């Protein structure tokens, strides 16, 4: 029985999601109201029997540290298993040197000390469902040295701009890894998910840091894919990369299709999260809600359409929320109209009459702002 150490990686500094990321790393973003993005990679690991997990944090660790905690809510045995938080120390969070390779390099002890033969690396900034046992089995069966996960998309001109694309040969061998330049709509997006032997992983990390101090793991893989047997494994189903505000908004709105959403949330593949113990949501006499996901603890008197509402949100009488994402504990006063917007946690919309963005450029309202 092969076993793998799970690694949840952090987005490096070439990626920045406007607004939202000023307050927390992408892994801590709220997703579909009651989840955080990092719930998806960790649930994938837990459901795949991986119970020794390292979560790398390169900036603003509080929210993830608090949310992940002991990992018991992810069904990780608290003795045999372990979710370990690992931090980047020797550089500031804004430095260009602060990338995944630096993080692994600084914590190489903890990687090497693990008993597992393989590592599976998955990003904290993408949402998808994948049985990693299947990935590992395929990796072993094919004899590949590195197996990477990818997703075929048909909208690469407009979305997934911060992602890498793969060039593949007929045998699914990886020929090159490049930034998505939006040159065509049909692309293979690298899901920043890798399966390989731990020893090779350590070697590649050392190689990368030796070659250049700003090399990322994708960079070294691109360089080495001529020498190593690097193969691609196709992922099917819902896939979202939350590496820009547009991508985040788009991916959220896609899940308003109940079939897409329920496909992603099957009882045989639970997505775990930390409960906040909020009570059910109360709908008042004047409430009018359609095609929306609503989290618990809300008080709804107004109108909500095609929207995702986080925990403990208050929407007063006469307020209208359309095509928007309202994050936890926000308050929308009576009579206010919000369309195509993302309202961050604890924001209070009291006076602004209308907040209106567009489908391609959603309006963003800052955390704790009072408008």
């Amino acid at each position, binding site marked *: 029985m092969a076993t793998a150490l799970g690694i949840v990686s952090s987005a490096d500094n070439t990626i920045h999601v406007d607004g939202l990321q000023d307050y927390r790393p992408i892994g801590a973003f709220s997703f*579909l*109201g*009651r989840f955080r993005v990092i719930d998806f990679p960790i649930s994938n690991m837990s459901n795949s029997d991986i119970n020794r997990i390292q979560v790398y944090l390169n900036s603003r660790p509080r929210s993830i540290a608090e949310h992940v905690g002991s990992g*018991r*809510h992810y069904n990780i045995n608290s003795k045999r298993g372990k979710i370990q938080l690992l931090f980047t120390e020797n550089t500031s969070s804004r430095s260009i040197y602060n990338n995944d390779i630096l993080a692994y390099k600084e914590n190489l002890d903890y990687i090497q000390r693990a008993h597992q033969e393989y590592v599976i690396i998955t990003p904290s900034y993408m949402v998808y469902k994948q049985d990693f046992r299947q990935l590992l089995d395929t990796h072993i069966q094919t004899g590949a040295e590195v197996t990477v996960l990818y997703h075929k998309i048909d909208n690469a001109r407009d979305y997934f701009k911060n992602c890498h694309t793969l060039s593949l040969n007929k045998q699914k061998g990886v020929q090159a890894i490049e930034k998505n330049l939006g040159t065509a709509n049909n692309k293979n997006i690298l899901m920043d998910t890798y399966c390989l032997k731990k020893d090779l992983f350590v070697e590649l990390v050392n190689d990368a840091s030796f070659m250049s101090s700003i090399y990322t793991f994708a960079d070294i893989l691109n360089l080495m894919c001529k020498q190593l047997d690097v193969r691609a494994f196709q992922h099917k189903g819902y896939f979202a990369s939350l590496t820009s505000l547009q991508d985040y908004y788009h991916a959220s709105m896609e899940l308003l299709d*109940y079939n897409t*959403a*329920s496909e992603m*949330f099957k009882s045989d593949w*639970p*997505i*775990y*999260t930390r*409960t906040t*113990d*909020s*009570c*059910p*949501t*109360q*709908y*008042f*006499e*004047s*409430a*009018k*809600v*359609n*095609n*929306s*996901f*609503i*989290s*618990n*603890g809300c*008080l709804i008197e107004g109108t*909500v359409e095609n929207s*995702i*509402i986080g925990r*403990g949100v208050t929407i007063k009488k006469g307020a209208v929320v359309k095509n928007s994402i309202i994050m936890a504990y926000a308050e929308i006063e009576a009579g206010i109209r919000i369309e195509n917007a993302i309202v961050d946690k604890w924001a209070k919309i009291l006076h602004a009459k209308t907040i209106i963005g567009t489908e391609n450029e959603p309006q963003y309202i800052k955390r704790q702002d009072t408008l």
Partner: protein
Amino acid sequence: MAQNEMLAMILAGGRGSRLKDLTTKVAKPAVYYGGKYRIIDFPLSNCANSGIDVVGVLTQYESVLLNSYVAQDGRWGLDSKDSGVYVLTPREKADEGLDVYRGTADAISQNIDFIDAYNPEYLLILSGDHIYKMNYSKMLAYHKEHNADATIAVRGVPMKEASRFGIMNTDHKGRIIEFEEKPAKPKSNLASMGIYIFDWKLLRKMLVDDMKNPNSDHDFGKDIIPRMLNEKKDLFAYEFSGYWKDVGTIDSLWEANMDLLDPKNELNLNDSSWLIYTEDVSTLPQYIGKDAKVKRAYITQGVQIEGSVTNSVLFTGAVVGAGAKVVDSVIMPGAVIEEGATVTRALVAENVKIGKKAKVGQKNSENIVLVASNVKGGNK
């Protein structure tokens, strides 16, 4: 409160036969309430929030579900090093050879060794089937302040109903001078809530004596409290004035759920300073469909609504199909109201399916209908 200063024991034995089919498989304290809770979440959360670390839950009958539910002590945060929720089933054989507790006092007596292991100064005794939020540490402070041997929580009931309750007659300082069980002519309206704080050393002595008494019913209300009053012990009444509900019947369970729809409801489950904790489930948030109509409703995660819901409480995983109508009803976990069905003034039990276009309940019925098994579609 200091570690193990006060231990709590929850009497969760009752089968709750007036709750009919809701309790054929589960004990009454495990019955659902309020969209996502079970009744026993209330005393357990109250304990956790009051700083009590160790809780014994005294159960009997076929209560596998209740037992494994409360054994997950992390649900109420009672899983730190020296904390815990312990299920205590009867161990001694009663006179009739049944393995049940003979009375409320007997339930405690049979677990003296468990309590002794923690050596608490005070013992809190609770009932497992009431809905309320109460800070027991304030009651303990009151108990200490009055140097009481026992403190009993009471609440004011309408004087005309007082003869249905156990009534405490007190002096002006709150000292209990008389206890009358269902008095024909009540002298006060302070009804016992079945919540007691005892000095453990004293209670232990009294329980040991009571066990030897062949004429005792081994009950707090009938035996222990009267004897303490007889012996001139210092018993005090602690008045509680918040929301409190005994949900012993289908009608009162329905009513207690309906209370939550009141925008000013006194229980206020949304108060972050006194949360009620419960089982954590992995589901989608609630989804309100394209043509759904939802008003005056109390709805929790995992619910999917395509039809219309008015004046109702819906539990985790409940589904209301397109064109279905749910009015003045309580829909328990996993229940499915199929397309076009109508549910009125009903309590639909867990996982029950109401078939397409079926009709259940009536607008002006005297009692609430309990629907405990599937109802076939109305169109066949």
